[in-house]
């Protein structure tokens, strides 16, 4: 299972773009990159998943370079409600067995 490394915390002002980078040097060929968001005392919420290049949805964008050893979650124009912990996970999207390792994530604080 590929290990991921993210910053422990980040601060931002409302309205700014926030980029959270995750490094996963040992990513395997079949691994996908998935990001979750978690508010205190709630279950994590799926944000976005990608395999390579760029993925965009209504919430965020995910940028993955060609070597796939890192990925960047981009949150456009953050608001106070985006204050949460963000987890980067790497794992297979197949029928083989694996366990997701959430780690400690990145704690994002958005202030006015």
């Amino acid at each position: 299972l590929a290990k991921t490394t993210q910053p422990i915390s980040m601060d931002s002002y409302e309205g700014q773009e926030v980029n959270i980078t995750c490094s996963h040097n040992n990513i395997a060929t079949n691994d996908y990159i998935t990001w979750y968001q978690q508010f205190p005392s709630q279950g994590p919420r799926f944000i976005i998943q990608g395999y390579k290049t760029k993925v965009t949805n209504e919430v965020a964008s995910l940028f993955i370079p060609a070597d796939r050893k890192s990925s960047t979650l981009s949150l456009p124009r953050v608001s106070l409600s985006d204050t949460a912990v963000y987890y980067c996970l790497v794992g297979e999207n197949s029928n083989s067995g694996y366990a997701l390792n959430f780690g400690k994530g990145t704690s994002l604080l958005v202030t006015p």
Partner: protein
Amino acid sequence: EAGVTQSPTHLIKTRGQQATLRCSPISGHTSVYWYQQALGLGLQFLLWYDEGEERNRGNFPPRFSGRQFPNYSSELNVNALELEDSALYLCASSRAQNIQYFGAGTRLSVL
């Protein structure tokens, strides 16, 4: 479509007792995962069930066990509760090993 539901929301037990936590997955999802999140820590993987079978287990003692029923709902049982078992227990469901969707969790307090 209903999301993942967990019950009870809160559970208070004393040391040495047993706790049973329940999870109903999203309709059509066959895999159920259990995680433990102690205060201020990340999620620790506990158990993974798929099609009624235990597929994988995290680094937890045998007093943490569970099962998955024919309707894909699941129970997590924790025997001989210890103070350090106090945590938020989260259940997630998915189709096969695709994206996991989480419930709101059960807050277990061991006194």
